[in-house]
Every structure is written in structure tokens, then in C-alpha cells.
């Protein structure tokens, strides 16, 4: 089931503004990789359970206790842009 991919749509989902010269090369690479991956289709897996994680660990909880966190200043100090206690980003709400 060799796949033609819609590179514009995938790039939109991935939040990448690909330049025209990147698009052609990347779609070709992706189609080649997907053609290779297609060999998995020859295996019958209807009765096989998926493995998303190899360790038999589920829902690890810890006590919900309060602890001081003293990293705010260090985090904000090297942020691309900050103001007071906040990361600063371009305006989101139109006309505000």
C-alpha cells in the first residue's frame, strides 16, 4: 500500500513552515521510508496484542505532597522572552 503523502497537511500538523526546496526532498524521503515500512503488512497480526511499553508498570503514583520549587527564576532567566513571572509570547487575542 505504498503511500503518497500530503506533505502540506503533515507539515501543518507538525507546526513546520517548510520551504519549497525542503518539501520535495522530504516527501520523497518519507515515501521511500514508508515503502520500506510496508513490509510489516506481510505479517498477520490480528490476534497479537500491541506493546507500547516493555515493563509491566501501570499507573505509578506518588503522594500528593507540597514541596518548594525554586527553579522559577532560573527557568525564566534563560527563556527567549519573559516578563515578571511569565513567559512572554506575541499577542494571541485579536483587538485586545
Amino acid at each position, binding site marked *: 500500500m505504498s503511500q503518497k503523502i500530503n506533505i502540506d497537511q503533515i507539515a501543518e500538523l507538525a507546526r*513546520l*513552515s517548510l520551504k519549497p526546496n525542503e518539501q520535495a526532498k522530504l516527501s520523497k524521503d518519507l515515501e521511500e521510508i514508508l515503502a520500506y*515500512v510496508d513490509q*510489516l503488512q506481510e505479517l498477520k497480526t490480528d490476534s497479537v*496484542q*500491541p*506493546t507500547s511499553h516493555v*515493563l509491566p508498570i501501570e499507573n*505509578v503514583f506518588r503522594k500528593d505532597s507540597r514541596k518548594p520549587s525554586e527553579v522559577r527564576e532560573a527557568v525564566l532567566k534563560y527563556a527567549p*522572552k519573559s516578563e515578571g513571572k511569565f513567559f512572554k509570547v506575541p499577542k494571541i487575542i485579536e483587538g485586545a
Partner: protein
Amino acid sequence: MELYQFTLKQAQEFLAKDPDRRGELIAALSNRLKIVDPKVKAYVNFDSKRVELQKDGRKKSPLSGVPISIKDNIVTQDWETTCASKILKGFIPPYDATVVRKLREAGAVIFGKCNMDEFAFGSSCETSCFGPTHNPWNLDYVPGGSSGGSAAAVASDIAIAALGSDTGGSIRQPASFCGVVGLKPTYGRVSRYGLVAFGSSLDQIGPITKTVEDCAMIMNVLAGHDERDSTSANVPAPDYTSFLSKDVKGLKIGLPKEYFVKGLDPEVEKMVRQAAKVFQDLGATCVEVNLPHMKYAVAVYYIVAVAEASSNLGRFDGVQYGFRHESTNLRDMYFETRDQGFGAEAKRRILLGTFVLSAGYYDAYYLKGLKVRTLIKQDFDQAFQKVDLILGPTAPTPPFKIGEKINDPLSMYLSDIYTISANLAGVPAMSIPCGFSDKGLPVGVQLTAKPFGESTIFRAASAYEQTTKWYEKKPNL
């Protein structure tokens, strides 16, 4: 012998005898680095003042005063951590990764940050935004990847030992290419807290060292449960050094039929079979085993690993850390930051991961990949009912030339064909030097054990190393 040539064990003994000479060891290593690293380019961040500051640390600890180098995707407090990506340039972590904290508590001096493929995406160290690292055995060749900087630094005697990370072979393949020892521990054996995530169900941190003994000494520091990594295993860790210098009599070693097929370089095959012969001569039994789904490992990996990578890399959007493309428009800031900040291989994997997770393709790709992952894991479970260890090549070829595979992603991916399945199954695996090609380039043999079977690997690897002593050969730099 020069001080910079020390193994970890020798450095530890030297400093235990004379703790006041720790400055001398660090100076010897720093001077060697200044001469050698302009050729090898193993480090992305080295600052002798920063190293000086640490040298008067704890004096009575197991690694007291011993310098250790760290791959640049493991966070170090107040010390830039870039993952060799433009998008993280300028990121100064406010905390140490658990492994770094443990090394410091054991007295180690964090020596420098090592080059790598961008976000660990690669098998040659060529996708780094800082430019490639060179193989110390021949500077025209790649050191392997993604932990190529760590492996090249150890092989060049500009690191006593180093940490790497391994998602599909990123510790073992560069260890093989540089002629050093590299261990990917069992998934969950070592905390991933502070490792910049690539494939969260596959990533493990592990040591890259000059000898098997050094590797065991570092594992004694790293192994153990960490409440800050909910996937770390609550399984007691033994003293790994207690398994060294034991014989291998009675050990059953499996050679998978599927490993010795077309695509395996004849020189590598010969050396790997010789390694099996050494084990037999030492009293181990070698038998054939089957890993029937082995040939699907790369295909599964390029679904599962890229899917996890595409979601893990969602956090790099110019808001909190590293590089931002300034814009008056938020959407434009996200899209341009990511397009300018990520390199070609990172974009390839983000796009592929986004695709296999997208509506309409999830079942055909991602779910299918997870199911075949189950079959690969079952192959190992069955093999380990018959044998204690699996032996095979680490990489299908000796090191290749810089530039040889960088424009052919699929052929680059296939250089991890023998290492990927251990990550998919979560089992531990080590690469140890087993000889040199006709061109004088190193080749490694891989030993794989069942989950939490690192001790069996140490037992066999140390017996092999003591017999063959490949580590005595050093590159001319």
C-alpha cells in the same frame, strides 16, 4: 604511561592513593583535549574554568575526582545543553539529570559535553548543528552515532569515561566504530530524568568506557530506581563489579541464524564468529537460535521511535527555551521557530511520526508497529529460555566515510539493524571491541541478555576482554 591514558579504574586508584593530584589528572586531560579535539571534534562544550571549580569536591567517594564526560542531551545544571540542535542553543538547564547528580554524589568531576546527532537522530554524528565528530582511528570516517562524541572522546583519551544514550543503538554502534565498550542497560534500569526525550519507551542512558570493568563501575553508580522517572524499575541493582573476572564455563550463548545474512560485511562476520570461538575455548557452549522477526525491527522502529519523537519534540516551539524566531504573530513564531531551529533529519522524523499517528493511518502504521514489536519481544523471550546470552555483530559494517550515507536516510537507518531490536524488547546489550578491519578500523561484537541480565553480560564480556585485550591498541592522533 600518560595520566590521560588512564582507565576509570586506574584514575580511581591513582586518586585514592594521592587525592591532592586530582588537579594534575584534570590538567593532563585538558591539555590533551586542546591538542586532539580540534581534529576529532568530540566536544561541543568544554570550559576548563568550570572543570577547575569542581575539583575540590568530596574526597572519600567511589569516583572521587574522576573526570567524566556527558552527551549533550543529558541536562547539566547551569551548563548549556543543546542536543546539538540550533533550537536548543542557549538553553541553560536549572537542574542536573539524575545520572549527573549521582555521578557528582559519587565524587566525579563533570568534564565536558559531547557532540551527538541532533536530538540523537542519526548513526554517524553528522546531523549535529555543530558539524560532525571524526573517527579517531581515521579522521575521514564517522565515529558512529548518535553518541559519537562520547565514544570518540573515550577512544581518543580525551575522556576517562563518558555517558551516552541509546534509543536504537546510539551507545553500542559508536562504541563499535570507535573501539570502546558501550552498554545499553535494560529499559528502566537507569533513570531517564533529565535526558531530553526522543523515544520515551526506548531511551536508556548508559556508559561508554575503555574497559568492561570501567563500565561496571559506572553502572554501580547509575543503576537504581528514581521516583522522578515513573518508568524506572524498582528492582535492586547488584554490585556489577562482582561479576568481573569470573569464568564463562557452562554459559550458553546463542547465535541467531537471522544475524548472519546478506548485508553483513564478510570481515565483520569473520570477527564475530572468531569471538564466538573465543567463548567456546573459554568453556562456553554456542548454539544456533532463532529470532524470526528480527528482519522487521528497523521497520517497527521507524514507526514507533518517530511517533514518540514527534510528540516529544512538540515542546520546542520557541516559548520556554532555546531559540525563538521573533514575530508579531504567534502562529508564525511557532512555525518559523521550528522550521529554522530543527535540522533536516529532525524534520524528517517529526513529519514521519506525525504521519503515522495521524487520523486514517494510525491503525495501518502505528498500531501495526506496536503489534510487531510484541512479536520481536516474544522472539527474545523464547531465545532466552534456551540460552543465557545472544552474540552477534553490533553493526553490519566497519565505520563508513563521512558523507557516505548522509543523503540516503534509509541506508543510514539500516546501520542500526542489529541494535534496534534490543530497544524494542527492552533488553540490555553491550558492544565490546573484537578486532580491526583490513583498513585498521574497529569492529565490535554485541552481547545481549534477558531483562536485568547485565550481570551475565559483565561476566562474559570481562572474560572475553581479558583474553583478547583489544583495548590495549590505541589510535594514532
